[in-house]
């Protein structure tokens, strides 16, 4: 078996607004000073990494999900489609078959089980992918879902696929993930080699990161915690990590200056030495973990 060198880091959080995007963009730029990095924004509902990382767009494509289209003249009105669809996305009303695209999960059951081929699958736009060249070492890919499109998972999956095909040679990949613990986060983290959970030392931060920890354990993912805004709140998060045997990879101090730089879309690690130090710790930790992976 060839040595597998690629290392994918997913940055996730549970709670929103704890610094996922700040960490992803700063870490990607910092690492790109030394080696080639791909940064991927998988928070397709609210993709914000592009506000901090600017580059030249080199590729743009629409992304589609497949939904059935009713071909009236082929249909025998047998009703199988309506019966097999578990999502009520296909409905027979008298002599008419209605398709509800927003309920469709693209499982193909109605289409492929139709004895008359009256429901061929056709593409429907669900979002857009854009690829940027930031510098020789940093590539950035962002996907954004169409307003009104409710299912983020298919777009996340297609974005990862695009990255895998386009950048198989780039060893280091960083995924900026959506918040929460439900299906979009699972999709975004499922093939990561290491997950960084970033949180803040507050009761909300602790509660939500403990859900994220449960999620990562269920997925059997190696993970560690970065505490952001360290200094506000209390020490409960540290006690929690100690009790649960979770590594605290780095602490980023609470600093109004960081919030101000962030608010105007600037990267912070070159301005605030403590942030750079934290990124260094994270880099070293990830290097150690990736070495273990190869062994």
């Amino acid at each position, binding site marked *: 078996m060839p040595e597998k060198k690629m290392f994918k880091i997913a940055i996730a959080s549970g709670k929103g607004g704890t610094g996922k995007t700040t960490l992803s963009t700063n870490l990607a730029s910092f690492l790109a000073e030394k080696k080639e990095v791909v940064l991927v924004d998988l928070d397709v509902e609210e993709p914000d990494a592009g506000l901090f990382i600017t580059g030249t767009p080199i590729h743009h494509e629409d992304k589609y999900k497949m939904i059935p289209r009713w071909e009236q003249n082929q249909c025998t009105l047998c009703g199988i489609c309506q019966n097999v669809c578990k999502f009520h996305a296909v409905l027979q009303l008298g002599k008419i078959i209605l398709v509800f695209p927003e309920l469709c*999960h693209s499982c193909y059951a109605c289409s492929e089980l139709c004895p008359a081929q009256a429901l061929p699958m056709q593409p429907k736009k669900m979002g857009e992918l854009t690829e940027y060249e930031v510098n020789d070492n940093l590539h950035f890919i962002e996907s954004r879902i169409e*307003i009104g499109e409710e299912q983020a998972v298919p777009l996340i999956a297609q974005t990862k696929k695009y990255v895998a095909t386009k950048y198989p040679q780039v060893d280091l990949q960083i995924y900026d993930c959506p918040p929460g613990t439900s299906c979009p986060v699972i999709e975004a983290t499922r093939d990561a080699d290491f997950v960084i959970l970033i949180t803040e030392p507050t009761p909300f931060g602790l509660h939500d990161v403990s859900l994220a920890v449960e999620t990562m354990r269920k997925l059997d993912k190696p993970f560690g915690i970065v505490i952001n805004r360290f200094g506000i709140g209390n020490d409960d998060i540290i006690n929690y990590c100690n009790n649960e045997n979770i590594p605290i990879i780095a602490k980023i101090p609470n600093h109004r200056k960081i919030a101000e730089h962030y608010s105007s879309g600037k990267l912070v690690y070159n301005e605030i030495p403590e942030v750079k130090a934290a990124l260094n710790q994270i880099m070293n930790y990830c290097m150690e973990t990736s070495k273990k992976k190869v062994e």
Partner: protein
Amino acid sequence: MKEIVVISGKGGTGKTSIAASFAVLGGSDVIVADCDVDAADMHLLLKPDFEFSEEFYSGEIAYIEQSKCIVCGKCTEVCRFDAISFINSQYFINPLSCEGCGYCSQVCPASAIINKSRLSGKWFVSNIKTGSKMIHARLDIGADNSGKLVAKVKNEAKKLASEEAKPFILIDGSPGIGCPVVSSLSGANFVVLVVEPSVSGVHDLKRVYQVVKNFNIKAGCIINKANLNPEKHQEIKDFLLEENISHLADIPYDENFTKAMVNGMTIIEYDQNELKKILSQTWEKIKILLTN
């Protein structure tokens, strides 16, 4: 009965802290619904007693009966979600990947696959410290259908509000613009957008407002951490004017937000001065806007 939804697009803008303060200000007039089922935090401030709880089933999940399986592999061929893997000469369904479409069970020649209803979480009715009640929920890890659980929480809140003749339902929504947000908006009378003056705050506000617009709901906006970035603050104000959204309040950057939370209190309980004044006035404003 009027439904007020608090959302933000971006996470971490202070949405839940502000919503919990409104819950205290509204007291017994308000039924609270925590619709951020993915990362529900309202209970940390409102001290619910979990008086009633019920399991929430939604959708289905495929299950292979190994004794009937003839190992033909038809199920993996049709599965579009990579949910069926072949391990030690047996096929297995990965519950985290299975969407519950049931296609595999349709094509299985041995009828070895059955569809079970999927336990997706739990929902609760609680007495809270405001003297009223709260409906809240816990979505299971990795569960799909958070939109449906949101709808359940909302419907139960509506039922309760009409039984107890409460004038307001206050809904804490989730971040993003996907299915849980859409679910929490449907049927609402007023949307409170909580934003922060940062590039991402503005970007996310604009996106989530497109969703709000589709529902044609009256909206107001609270700018939290208002003095963080004057330029972005102005940009938000311009956007509000352009879209005819009421600018409800500016809240200054204040670490009392965090300190209140650490003490398990809402902001207005912890800060009796400036913050309490601003939030009380804002709550009154919302009530006036709702009746007009």
